[in-house]
C-alpha cells in the first residue's frame, strides 16, 4: 500500500514523502498526537549536526492515538481506538526491549506518527476505551515512561518508602508525582521545583517545595529526577544531599550534555541510580488499566493540555511546533486531520 508520510526534511522544514508498506499487521489512522521535547529538539535543529544529518528526513512524533483502519489478524475491529507503541523490537534480547539496541524507536530511528496511515505490528497497539479523553490519551506514551520507572523502582527499593521526592515542575514531574499518588498511596509525595506558578498546579501532592527554599531537616527516602538538561546537575546534587542512605534515585531527565555527579556521596550513602527511558507494551497495558480504574486522573492530566492545534496543512504543523516551543508548561496536542 502507498502511504503519504510527512517528514522533517531539515530543521523547521516539513515535506510530503511517499512510502510503500505491506498490508500485514495493523493499519492505523492517527487521530490525536502530542509533541515531545525530543521532537522539538529535531525541529529546532538543536541536536548535534551529525545526528540531524544521519536521521533526517524523518517523520516526528512518537506519542499518539489512532483509529484502526485494518487488522490483518482480525483481532481488532475497524474504528477501534488504540494507543500506539513507538518502541519496535526487531529481535529478542536479554534486556528489556525499551533498552535494547535491537529495538527501533519511532521519531528517532525511523518514521514517527505524522502520516496519513501508520502500519504497526499487532503487538504495537493497545486498545483504549472510546470514552477516554483523546487529548490526555494522546500523551499516554509519556505516562508509560513514568509508569515503567515507578514499577522498576518498586521492585528494587529495599528501604521504606515513607517520603518520595519528585524533582521537576514540568510535564514529566507532574505525571510522575500523580502516578506515585496512585501506586504508592501510603507514601508522602513532595514535589521540588523552581517555578511557583507551576508548583501550584500540583494540588494532589502532599507538599510542594521551591528548590531554593527547602526546610531544614527535610529528608526523603527515594527520589525521582524529572528535570533534564543542564539543570539536572543541581537537581541531582540536591537529591544526594536530602536522600536517606540506600535510597534509589530514578533519573528521567534528558540532557544533551554530560552531567557531573557527586559519586563520593553516592558511595557513602550506598545509593542506587536507576536510568529510565522509553517504555514497553506492559507499561502501556498498565497505564490504560490504571486510567480505567482511576478515571479521576483524567481531570488532573487535562491540566497538562496547553495547546490544541488542528493540523490540516504542513504549515499548521509548523505553527504547532512554534507554539509548543514558547509554551513553558504543558503539552501541545495535534488533532490530526492531515
Amino acid at each position, binding site marked *: 500500500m*502507498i502511504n503519504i508520510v510527512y517528514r522533517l526534511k531539515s530543521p523547521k522544514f516539513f515535506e510530503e514523502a511517499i*512510502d510503500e508498506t505491506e498490508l500485514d499487521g495493523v493499519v492505523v489512522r492517527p487521530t490525536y498526537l502530542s509533541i515531545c521535547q525530543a521532537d522539538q529538539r529535531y525541529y529546532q535543529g538543536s541536536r548535534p549536526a551529525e545526528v540531524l544529518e544521519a536521521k533526517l528526513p524523518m517523520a516526528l512524533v512518537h506519542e499518539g492515538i489512532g483509529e484502526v*483502519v*485494518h487488522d490483518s489478524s482480525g483481532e481488532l475491529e475497524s474504528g477501534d481506538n488504540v494507543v500506539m507503541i513507538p518502541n519496535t523490537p526487531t529481535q529478542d534480547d536479554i534486556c528489556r526491549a525499551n533498552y535494547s539496541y535491537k529495538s527501533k524507536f519511532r521519531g528517532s530511528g525511523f518514521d514517527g506518527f505524522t502520516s496519513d496511515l501508520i502500519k504497526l505490528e499487532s503487538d504495537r497497539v493497545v486498545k483504549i476505551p472510546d470514552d477516554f479523553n483523546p487529548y490526555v490519551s494522546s500523551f499516554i506514551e509519556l505516562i508509560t515512561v513514568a509508569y515503567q520507572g515507578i514499577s522498576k523502582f518498586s521492585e528494587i527499593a529495599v528501604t521504606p518508602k515513607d517520603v518520595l521526592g519528585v524533582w521537576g515542575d514540568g510535564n514529566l514531574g507532574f505525571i510522575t508525582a500523580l502516578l506515585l499518588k496512585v501506586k504508592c498511596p501510603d507514601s508522602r509525595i513532595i514535589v521540588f521545583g523552581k517555578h511557583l506558578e507551576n508548583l501550584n498546579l500540583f494540588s494532589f501532592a502532599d507538599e510542594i517545595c521551591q528548590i531554593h527554599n527547602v526546610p531544614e531537616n527535610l529528608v526523603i527516602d527515594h527520589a525521582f529526577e524529572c528535570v533534564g538538561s543542564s539543570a539536572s546537575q543541581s537537581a541531582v546534587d540536591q537529591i544526594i544531599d536530602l536522600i536517606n542512605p540506600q535510597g534509589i534515585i530514578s533519573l528521567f531527565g534528558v540532557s544533551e550534555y554530560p552531567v557531573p555527579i557527586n559519586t563520593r556521596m553516592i558511595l557513602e550513602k550506598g545509593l542506587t541510580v536507576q536510568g529510565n527511558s522509553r517504555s514497553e507494551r506492559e507499561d502501556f497495558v498498565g497505564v490504560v488499566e490504571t486510567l480505567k480504574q482511576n478515571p479521576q486522573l483524567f481531570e488532573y492530566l487535562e491540566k497538562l493540555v496547553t495547546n490544541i492545534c488542528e493540523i490540516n496543512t504542513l504549515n499548521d504543523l509548523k505553527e504547532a511546533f512554534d507554539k509548543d516551543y514558547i509554551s513553558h508548561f504543558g503539552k501541545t496536542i495535534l488533532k490530526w486531520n*492531515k
Partner: protein
Amino acid sequence: MIFAAILAGGIGSRMGGTDTPKQFLTLGNKPVIIHTIEKFVINEKIDKTIVLIPKNFINHTVNLIKEYIGENGDIIVIEGGETRNDTIMNSISYIEENFGIDDESIILTHDSVRPFVTHRIIEDNISAARKYGACDTVIPATDTIVESVNGRTVESIPVRDYYYQGQTPQSFNIKKLFNLINSLTEEESNILTDACKIFTLKDEDVYLVDGEVTNIKITYPYDLKLANTILEDGHD
C-alpha cells in the same frame, strides 16, 4: 451501502511508448491499479469496490488482484464503458442489479491512475457524500488560469482564488446521481465529461473536499517516472 468505483475504462492513449495501459504499469513493486485498489479495500466502511476495466483486460486485472491482494469477495471487476459517464453508469447498473439502491447508498468514483489518494481524502469523501449528496476533491489552483477560446489570444484571466484543480474521488448519493443522469437530454450528455458537472448543470450543490498535491494522476510517462522517483526517495 458504500461503494467505490475505480475507473480504469480508458486505454491510456496519452501515455505513449508502451502498449500497456498506464494503470497496469509498475509503481514501486506493484501495478498502479493495485496500489489504488488497496486504498479502498482496507477501508472497512466501503462495502464493495468495483473495478471498471476495458473488456480485454478484465482477466488480467482479476489475476493481478489475486496475486497481490488475494481472494477478496469485496472486489468486483466488470467492464467499463465508452466514456467516463458510461463507465460510471455501468457501475450504477451493476449495483442496482446486484445490491439494490436505497436512499442512503453512496458511491466514490476514483481514477485508477491516482494511487496516492490518502485515507483522509477517502474518509472526507464518505462524510461529504453522506451529508450533502455530492462532493468533488480539489486543490487550490497554483498557476494562473488563462482563458483563450481561439487558442491564439488571451480572452480573460480569472481571479485565481476562485479556481481549483479537480482531482478524484468524486462522490455521490447514488440515487441522486442515477436520477440526474437519466434526466439528461442527448445534447447535455454529449458535453458532460465530468460527473460533478451533471450536478452543477442541474443546479445541484457539489461540496469541496480538500485534496492533496501528492494525489497526482499518472497520465504521461513523466508522471510515472516522477512517481517512482518519489517512491524510491521515500525508501532511502
